[in-house]
Structure formats: structure tokens, C-alpha cells
């Protein structure tokens, strides 16, 4: 038995570390630990509710759109309003564009370096000027820094890296293509952010999200500009991204068997009508092979192994959180959310799997096309590669769907519903962030925030053990993963990164009405 620590897990958002026990070359136990805490909900207390749409976006700079929309939706509920048609469509358009950005960033810039051999560039013999420039840079770095004080940083940020034997793709052409696509994807994800900015004002941290919709009145020029960037992104998704995911899956087909998890939860993504109850990707809970209807009353958060001394097993509306940095037995800043007592994976895979099993024909067509490449059935998707494929499929479907939303926009029409802040109220706002199910809950008293809580995607899947000792999805998915070289546990990193963790989101504080005196603000 050997304990191995992966601290920090890089190429994710935020501060996460993993501790694994390896026996006979396989992971037999795992703990994932959130290593950062800020205390967001307490900072929200006593403020104007509308300020929350801005403040909560700072929970995460990778998915601020999701937090902003979840916040505006929980305020919609508390204020007794619904977004108007333009408001709903504009929310879909900025969120959809950020999905494209986030999924492309995740596959190419966060995960690809676990599969692609970046050093293949040194032997590049082709004539592409961009690749030749990168090659010249890499060679120069190695020569320049050899024997120097900063030798370790030659070709940074790509090196140093895990150097397990046979860890990376051996095919030279495949590596070169992937490096070219890594560079291209840097530009494409920026173009997706241009799409967000057209209606959101800026990104990260959109200016234009308010209760009832957005602040930016759509014009023909906006729509033209958005479509121009969409065209570039769509071409990349269809011609490059999907194919690269399939190529990686071919080279690493054993990852259809690794990182498996089968309790899945989706809140439903992208409202397809003004009622707010029909979605592009269906909501529901999948456990034991059956999809059940979503009931958020069944959500609880447990803290036995989390660094909090407040009560456990509370619904978010009643949530409390009191930090206890040195709590005995606790190993993380993440709580353990449970749905009907069970841990849940959330994210693109649950969205796609639940949509597929709910009879969503558009999803079924794309999923079956990918599965056919591998002669696999739907059970193959509950895996590391299934998660990557689910993101690519979502990106492809979104590019098509976004055009329809653009066509439905009322040019020059109001981008939001009006509202008045009530004396009292409470509301729930559910969104699917790129990383999965996200819920915000607000309680308003005297026109001020009296309680505010978020249960975010990464808290679900990077959850620690719960009160009964049941382990969380990522911990469970790690168990059984073969580790060829304990000094270079790249296999574990691949499993964790497939979930796309975001720790800044996951570690926040949910707090009730009690005063906590800790540190004076200078």
C-alpha cells in the first residue's frame, strides 16, 4: 500500500489535491480535497439583492455566466417575475457561448497535455509557419536554459510534466495535429468569449445580467457580429474538436472502462420556451438505470468530513456553515451534497445521458454516431472518455441551436422584464453550468439578502465522504484506476480532469442567521 499525493492538481480551476492509496498497481482508496475557502455567502448578507448577480459571478471566473444567471433566476422567483422572451433567449445565448468556450478550453488546454506528447514538436519537419515558430521557441528554450538556474522551466508552461513510460501518444502526426489544434483552440475559445461579450458587455464577469434578463438591447448588428464568431467556432467544433475527441478515444480506449460512475443528476439546460419547464437538455436523476423526475426538495448537504462545525444534512434553504479549519477527521473545504441520500455526478455526461434516456432524438443521433465508431452501447458513456465525448456532442448541438435562438430574438425589444424588490421573499434558481447542476437559493428580508446559498457542480462530484461514510463520485471513480508508475500517477490525473473540477466554485460558505466573529476587517 502506497499513499500518493497529487497536490496541486493543475489544469483545473482552483486549488484541489488528491490523495490516493495504491495497492498492486491499482487505486484502492481516494480522497479529494478542496484547498481554498473564501466565505462568499456571508459577504452577500445584508446587501441589495440585485448586487448578488455581480458578486456571485466572482465565485468563478471560468463559469461566471452560470452563476450570474442562477442568481438572476433565484431573484426572479423571489420577486415573483419571469424573464421575458428576449431575456430568456439572451440568457441562453451568453450561457451557450460560454459552454463553447469552456468545453473547448477544457479539452484542449486543461486535458490534452495528459494525452499529447508536446515534445513531438522538436522533430516537426513540416512547413506550417506557426508550428515552426513553436518548434524554434522550444529548441531555443532547451538550449538557453540548459544548466541554468531555471533549467526546470525550459519550455514552460508545457514542461516539466509527468514522465511515465508510454504515457503519451506515440504517433508523431497525431501529436503534431493535436499541438496545432491546441494553438488554434486558444484563438477559438477567445472567439466564443467574443460571442458572450456581444450581449454580456464583457467576460469574465458579465456586466449585463440582471433579474428578468439582460441589459443589452439586441440589434441586427449585434446578431450579425455574434453569428460571425459563431461561424468560426462551429467550423472548429465540427471539423476539429469532435474528431480529436474520437482520435484520443481510439488511442486510449481503455478509458471507456475507467473513471466510471452511474448516479447522475441534471437540472435541465437551456429553456426552450417561456414557461421555463422545457429544456434543450432534459432534467432528471438517473440511478440504477432509470430516470426519475427532479425534486430539489431531496437535496441535502452533509459536513462530517468537511471543515465546518455547523449542523449537517440541511436543505440549502436552511443551510448553515461555520468554518472550522482544524476539525478532527475533516479533510476538505467541500461539503457532501446528497440527492435522496445518494452522491451524484453532475455535468455534460449526466445532461447527455439523461437526455438520451428521456428520448431526446437530437442527442440520441449524435451519441449513437460516436458510439458506432467504437461498436459500443450507451453504457460506454459512463466513463472518462464518455465525459469528453459528451462535451463535444453538446458543443456541436449548441452551435445549431444557437442559430435558432438568434432568429427568435426580437430586434430592438426590451431585453428583460421589469421588477420591484419586495420586502420579503425567497427563491430558487437552477442552471446547468458547463460543469453541471448549479443551484442558488436566496432569502430576502427588509429588501436585503437575509440568506444566500449556492450548491455548485464541483461540490457534487468532488464531494468528500458523507455522514454515513459513502464516498463521493470522483473518489469512487478513481478506485480501480491502474497506476503504472507511482512517481508519475498520470492515470489518476486523467480521471479527475475528465470531470472538469472548479474549486473556486465548490468552496464557498453557506451560512444561516447566526453571527460568526472571526476576523476584524482592517
Amino acid at each position, binding site marked *: 500500500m502506497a499513499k500518493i499525493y*497529487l497536490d*496541486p*492538481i*493543475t*489544469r483545473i480551476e*482552483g486549488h484541489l*489535491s488528491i490523495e490516493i492509496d495504491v495497492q498492486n498497481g491499482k487505486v484502492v482508496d481516494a480522497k479529494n480535497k478542496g*484547498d*481554498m*475557502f*473564501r*466565505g462568499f455567502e*456571508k*459577504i452577500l*448578507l445584508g*446587501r*441589495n439583492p*440585485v448586487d448578488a448577480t455581480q*458578486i456571485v459571478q*466572482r465565485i468563478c*471566473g*471560468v463559469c*461566471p455566466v452560470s452563476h450570474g444567471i442562477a442568481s438572476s433566476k433565484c431573484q426572479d422567483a423571489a420577486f415573483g417575475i419571469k424573464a421575458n422572451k428576449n431575456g430568456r433567449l439572451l440568457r441562453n445565448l451568453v450561457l451557450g457561448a460560454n459552454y463553447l468556450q469552456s468545453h473547448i478550453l477544457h479539452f484542449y488546454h486543461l486535458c490534452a497535455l495528459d494525452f499529447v506528447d508536446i515534445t513531438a514538436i522538436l522533430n516537426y519537419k513540416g512547413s506550417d509557419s*506557426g508550428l515552426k515558430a513553436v518548434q524554434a*521557441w522550444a529548441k531555443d*528554450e532547451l538550449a538557453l536554459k540548459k544548466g541554468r*538556474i*531555471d533549467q*526546470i522551466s525550459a519550455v514552460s*508552461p*508545457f514542461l516539466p*510534466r*509527468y514522465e511515465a513510460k508510454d504515457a503519451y501518444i506515440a504517433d508523431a502526426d497525431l501529436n503534431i495535429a493535436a499541438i496545432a489544434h491546441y494553438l488554434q483552440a*486558444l484563438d477559438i475559445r*477567445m472567439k466564443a*468569449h467574443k460571442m458572450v*461579450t456581444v*450581449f454580456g458587455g*464583457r*467576460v*469574465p464577469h458579465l*456586466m449585463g445580467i*440582471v433579474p428578468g*434578463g439582460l*441589459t*443589452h*438591447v439586441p440589434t441586427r448588428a449585434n446578431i450579425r*457580429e455574434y453569428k460571425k464568431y459563431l461561424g468560426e467556432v462551429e467550423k472548429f467544433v465540427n471539423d476539429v474538436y469532435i474528431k480529436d475527441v474520437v482520435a484520443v478515444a481510439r488511442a486510449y480506449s481503455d478509458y471507456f472502462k475507467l473513471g466510471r460512475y452511474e448516479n447522475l443528476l441534471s437540472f435541465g439546460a437551456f429553456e426552450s420556451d417561456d414557461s421555463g419547464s422545457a429544456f434543450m437538455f432534459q432534467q432528471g436523476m438517473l440511478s440504477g438505470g432509470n430516470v426519475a423526475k427532479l425534486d430539489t426538495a431531496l437535496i441535502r448537504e452533509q459536513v462530517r468530513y468537511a*471543515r465546518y462545525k455547523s449542523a449537517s444534512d440541511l436543505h440549502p434553504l436552511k443551510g448553515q456553515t461555520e*468554518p472550522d*479549519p482544524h476539525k478532527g477527521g475533516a479533510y476538505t473545504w467541500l461539503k457532501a451534497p446528497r440527492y435522496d441520500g445518494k452522491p451524484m455526478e453532475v455535468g455534460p455526461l449526466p445532461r447527455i445521458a439523461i437526455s438520451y434516456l428521456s428520448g431526446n432524438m437530437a442527442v440520441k443521433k449524435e451519441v449513437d454516431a460516436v458510439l458506432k465508431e467504437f461498436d459500443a452501447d450507451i453504457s460506454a458513456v459512463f466513463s472518462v472518455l464518455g465525459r469528453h465525448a459528451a462535451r463535444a456532442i453538446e458543443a456541436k448541438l449548441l452551435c445549431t441551436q444557437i442559430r435558432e435562438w438568434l432568429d427568435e430574438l426580437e430586434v430592438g425589444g426590451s*431585453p*428583460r422584464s421589469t421588477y420591484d424588490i419586495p420586502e420579503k421573499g425567497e427563491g430558487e434558481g437552477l442552471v446547468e453550468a458547463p460543469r453541471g447542476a448549479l443551484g442558488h437559493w436566496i432569502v430576502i428580508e427588509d429588501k436585503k439578502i437575509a440568506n444566500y446559498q449556492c450548491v455548485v457542480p464541483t461540490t457534487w462530484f468532488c464531494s468528500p465522504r458523507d455522514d454515513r461514510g459513502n464516498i463521493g463520485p470522483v473518489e469512487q471513480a478513481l478506485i480501480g484506476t491502474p497506476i503504472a508508475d507511482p512517481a508519475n*500517477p498520470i492515470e489518476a490525473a486523467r480521471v479527475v480532469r475528465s470531470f472538469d473540477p472548479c474549486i*473556486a466554485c465548490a468552496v464557498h460558505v453557506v451560512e444561516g442567521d447566526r*453571527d460568526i*466573529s*472571526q*476576523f476584524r*476587517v482592517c
Partner: protein
Amino acid sequence: MALNRRDFLKLMGGTAAVFGFSGVLLQGCKKAIKEAAERTPVIWLQAQSCSGCSVSLLNTIEPDIATLITEHISLNYHQTLMGGTGEVAIRVLDEAVKKQRKDFVLVVEGSIPTGSEEYCTIGMLNGRHVSALEWIRELGKNAKAILAFGTCSAYGGIPAAADRRTGLNPTGAKSLSEILPNATIINVPGCPPHPDWMIGTILHYVLKGIPELDEYNRPKLYFGKTVHEQCEHLSDYKRGRFAKHWGEKGCLYLLGCLGMDSGCDIPNRKWLGGVNSCTGCGSGCIGCTESVFPDYGKRGLYKHLMASLDEINALEEPQIRAAVLNLRNGGSING
């Protein structure tokens, strides 16, 4: 694609005068950048951050991010982008401390918690989780320049804001200047900062030394003018035309816009290469480049037609005072 003279000037604020280059120097600008800015090593630490500053950096257009990290800087440590994981990654920081490297620029994103070391740790050394605080103190000793990127790092920002009921902050979050009181720190605030501000400040430091700073240690070339004086809606303001609800035409002052109190050049520079701006999208400025963000005393961000009589009476132009009072008393917009 190397940075040409035009791009460089754009990055630096648009005119040669701003940057203080003489015409002769400008001739050699491109060459100077190629030579002097030969990949300055950067160690970029994230403490209590949301990664928003890093994502904003990725949105750089001139230079694009690939050019930035292969031609202008050498990004030795950046948790979101680096290839290494775990011990392989942390060795970079450990060596920088042990070998007493003095060749790098230290960038810190996020506030730094002082309430407990456990509130933010980065990596493990000899079985011990090392706090962000400890890394910053160690790396700050020898760094050749220290830059606080983003409002959290520059002034504490949202993670350092108070719980309104108690006046207390949950984690004892501090700005970089409070952690390293004796160091010279350049603040590049913004939530997030524009990529030009971050890259421009690094390049200015490399080529010309520390840029001229204002009283909040911000480069004047980016933060020297208020949003209000550059605003797309300035003529509406001067004519007393105010938006009363989101999405209406007019100056956004009544919706809580903080452009009069905030220094930055976004209305001119705009986001993502000219696509849109905070005031341009109809939301107004939330003052994210200021040290008092997000509290503004007890005012908060969106006052939404709640300007006090004192505030209204303080408005200089009688015509505007009358327009605002009219609206406050239920009058119609632009009337």
C-alpha cells in the same frame, strides 16, 4: 506574429506621448521589444482567486496568448495552464525559493487569507501543505518585480469584503500590499483586469521600468481618467437624459452607475478587441478598479433609483439636478 509598433502603442494606451517614447526610440520599438522583453520569467500564483484574471489574460488579442507565452514572457508557473501536476509542478516553486532565483516577475491573483493557513494551500512539500501566504512571502523576497493582478490581489476585493451584519470578513483576506508591506508593488486592479493592462504593465516594466503610478499604485496610463469622462453616454448625461430601467437609452447614473468614481479606460478600450463595454451594454460601471469595491461604504453596487437627496444636490449642473429630481419623484424619462 511579433508585436508591431502599432499594436505595442495600442497596448500602451494609444499614443507615443502616453508612453513617453521619443520618435527616435519608436523607430527601434519593435527591436527593443524583441531584445529587451526576451521572455521575462513570470511566476503566477493564484491565492483566493476565481481564475477570472487568468481567463481575462487568455482573451488577449494583440499579442495573442500563444505569442505572449512564446515570445514575450516565460510562464514558469501558472496553475491553470502548466503541464506539470502535483510534485512535478510544485518543484518549480520549490526550486525558485531554494535556489534563490531573482530573475522572475511575481504575479499574484486573488486575495491572501491570514485567518488560517488552511484557507488556501498550494501544493505539498515533505508531507506538509504549504499555504499561499508562505509561498508569497518566500517568492516575494527575491522577485525582481511584484505585480498584483486584479482587485482581490490589489486591494482585497470581494473575498475581503465584510459580512454586513458583523463588519467581519470570514477569512481575514488581505491584499498583496498588506502581506508584503515593504515591497514595491504595482497594482493592476479590475474584476477582471483588461488583458492589455496586465500585459502592458509587464512590458512597460521590462522596457522602461515601473510606469507612473497614481496614489493607489495603479499605472496612470490605464487608470488615470474616470469612466464617466470617456463614457458612450456622456452626451446623454450632459443633456439630462437618464435611463430609468435596464435597456432604456440614456446615462446610467440612476441605475447606480459608478463611472464618476472609477478610473479606467474601458469605454475607449472596450473588451475583447472592441466588441462591447460595461457602459455600452447598458449596465453601467460597478467601479471594479477601485480599492473600495464592492462596498463603496455601505452603498453597494446597484442603487437603482435610490440616489439620496444629498447625492442629487451634490450634482453640479442645475439642469441635471432637476432631471434627476424629476425622475426620483416619479416623473417620466427624458422629460
